[in-house]
């Protein structure tokens, strides 16, 4: 079976972020790419948490 489009997009997201060598950007983007709330996928959770609940 072909790879899901969801996986294609998510891998692209991960590549963009992990390939980034700028530490500040990396930290910022890591939050956006990996720390999303189960209920609405919104990454703003990180605004007032360490984002450890992903």
């Amino acid at each position, binding site marked *: 079976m072909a790879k899901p489009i969801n996986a294609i997009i998510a891998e692209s997201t*991960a590549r963009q972020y992990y390939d980034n060598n700028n530490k500040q950007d990396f930290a910022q983007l890591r939050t*956006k790419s*990996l720390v999303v709330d189960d*209920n*609405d996928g919104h990454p703003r959770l990180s605004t*007032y*948490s360490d984002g450890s609940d992903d």
Partner: protein
Amino acid sequence: MQKILIITAEEDATIEYFLSSLSEEDRLDVVHYKTDRPDLNQLVLSPTNDHKLELHTDGQIYNEMDFKSIYYRRTIPPKFNFQPPDFRLEMYCEDEYIRFLESLEYCFPETVKWFPGKPSDINRAKNKLLQLKLAQSLGLAIPVTSMTNRPEALLSFEHPSIYKTIKSPNVPVGDKGHSAAWTTEIDESIRQHADGLLTCPGIIQKRVCSLVDKLDIRVTAIGDLVFAAENSSPQHIDGRLTNAPYQAHLLPTWLSNRLSRLVSSLSLNFGAMDLIYDLSSGKYWFIELNSNGQWAFIEEDTSLPLCFAVRNFLWK
């Protein structure tokens, strides 16, 4: 004095934010059941017995009559960490745990208020097609949308269009365990993977306006109150990716009323709704509703009194 029951995982930034807004007196009314800490929190559910519920937490035992309202938010099962690792058994236990927690709704009297709603109503409301159907029936503008596993449907869909996931943007790929599939423009790089729909269905939707004309609107309905905030994100199809802070937005009364009716028609007392405002035409488009979405970041950015509204709903 009856208590306020909050059912959520130990780490839930929205709840932490909410609890920090309460007075010391109000905090004494709150019982926090942490779904991922079975070492501290246990339940006995017996809806056909005289005593329908035993809730054990922090050395206290409560029953179904001890609570006036329930905030059912982020029910993450415990982390099992079996040794040796057994991923399939973990998945099985997690699913059993979720069903167990959802059964709570059958153990409380009808007088108890649920926020955002009963678990079964929260889950039903998560279906994006149901939301669009109801929104359309209430006279809201919605984008042309298909949920499909047919590659040809994606290839023949009118341009410009976007792709998004049916339920969760968290996809288990990559070295770190998972990454996010944000709402994405359907371009050639997506079209060449159209067969991937056979493996995992998705949602395709007509893009309703250009990025430069797009204003992302987050509407938070709490009880009878409706709060709106706006954010322009001209670089992103998916408004969740912007760094810019939200600002309060004044919705037309007719729209506010219809969104409030949408939430109540889903038997909910809360809804975090995503809309797009087309600056060029002045038209609002309903995109989706998050039945248990986050809202604290909106208050943090805009100072709209969302904590106050949630507090009043739960306590009144």
